[in-house]
């Protein structure tokens, strides 16, 4: 599926020797993602690296983000596997991809998953991997709520909250990484650093959470994203109101989301202010309740 998508959206250097060369180079250098910077001086191997790939930073940073996010996704799925319901998974992917298409990171391939967990939660790994639990889906009443929740997660990715918080980037900025790629001696160090980054993302998602302002920012941009896609603006607020009730009455069901996010009531108030400021509180766009009911049972 993704291969086909790649064909429709050819990479800038697709098919050229330059792309193949860069891909090979990235495959080598990305092993050193997140290597610590240790030397100040420019080294000749590093200079050569810069000559080998024109502007490697942007492309390589993006590859680093995807690579870390992909491994995080594989770890999340080891904890909570996919719900075995291809129709449901496809439906969530269609809603999520439609929302993501209205965001500003069209360079990413987007993947959405319903995971087999009773807990009420949703989370996003860098690079385009978005998860919503079966428990969360059970609490939603219409497609606008689903789109709103997915849009919040998409916004974490488009706004690069985790990438910036953990400084996930390619090793080109690290002089040490440049040297070690050539001599191989400390690639292991770089690889361990990569693995640690994956651990840190997991901690952010399941233990520590992001900064309060990042969560409120994801709510803000998520709501606007859902509106741009054409959904009822009140989707995410409706879901948050239900989450707030859980926080009052059934804390266990929302344990992780409560630990990693500001209180739902606070988020709800911020969104209500935003809707009023933007003049979208009375905007009539569909919630798609019937279609949601047909797909989510």
């Amino acid at each position, binding site marked *: 599926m993704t291969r086909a998508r790649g064909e429709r959206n050819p990479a800038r250097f697709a098919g050229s020797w330059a792309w193949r060369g860069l891909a090979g180079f990235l495959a080598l250098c990305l092993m050193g993602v997140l290597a610590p910077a240790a030397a100040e001086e420019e080294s000749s191997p590093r200079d050569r690296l810069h000559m080998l790939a024109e502007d490697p930073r942007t492309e390589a940073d993006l590859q680093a983000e995807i690579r870390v996010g992909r491994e995080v996704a594989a770890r999340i799925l080891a904890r909570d596997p996919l719900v075995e319901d*291809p129709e449901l998974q496809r439906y969530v992917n*269609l809603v999520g991809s439609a929302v993501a*298409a209205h965001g500003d990171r069209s360079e990413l391939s987007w993947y959405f*998953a319903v995971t087999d967990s009773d807990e009420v939660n949703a989370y996003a790994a860098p690079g385009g991997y978005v998860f919503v639990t079966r428990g969360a889906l059970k609490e939603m009443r219409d497609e606008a709520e689903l789109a709103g929740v997915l849009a919040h997660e998409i916004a974490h990715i488009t706004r690069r909250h985790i990438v910036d918080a953990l400084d996930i980037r390619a090793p080109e900025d690290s002089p040490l990484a440049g040297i070690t790629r050539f*001599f191989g001696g400390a690639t292991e160090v770089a690889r361990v650093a990569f693995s640690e980054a994956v651990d840190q993302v997991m901690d952010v998602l399941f233990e520590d959470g992001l900064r309060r302002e990042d969560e409120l920012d994801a709510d803000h941009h998520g709501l606007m994203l859902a509106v741009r896609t054409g959904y009822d603006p009140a989707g995410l607020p409706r879901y948050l109101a239900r989450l707030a009730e859980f926080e009052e009455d059934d804390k266990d069901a929302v344990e992780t989301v409560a630990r990693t996010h500001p209180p739902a009531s606070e988020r709800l108030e911020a969104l209500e202010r935003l809707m009023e400021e933007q003049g979208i509180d009375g905007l009539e766009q569909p919630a798609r309740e019937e279609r949601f009911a047909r797909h989510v049972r």
Partner: protein
Amino acid sequence: MLIRLGILLGLLMVSGVLAAEDTRYVQSERAEVFETPAFDAARVGELQRGDPVERLSEEGDWLEIRAGELEGWVSTLLLGDSEPSARVSPLHGDEELEMEGRRRASAVATAGGVRSLEEDEELVADENVDVDQLHALEAQGVSTEEAIRFLHERDEDAES
């Protein structure tokens, strides 16, 4: 005369630079253009990913733009200073993760010589990843075109 010509040329160059700075590019797959800076305003058109637009003015989160014959307001969140990047597929990483999956039970580091990438991976093989599930997740991804078609099914659904 020469001085005037020089000034004229200078002004032309400066205006050219300014014009270039006022060009933005659509970053989303599509971006709706509104008559006024509000989501409930009339929609006057739609732009596609990569379309260049000329900035006319700005108001809050909205940019007034011109693109050919089309003029209106677009959310600033959808516009960037440079053309959008090409789509990047994560699939090139498959071999590495698969290798990790296959070898995680028998991670043995070899001594001496320059380590290969595979050996480095063995050293940090992660037993907590599920590569098969990851592949299943990636296989269920849909294209943007499918998703947009699905989104536009709304009218016939509303009628049913």
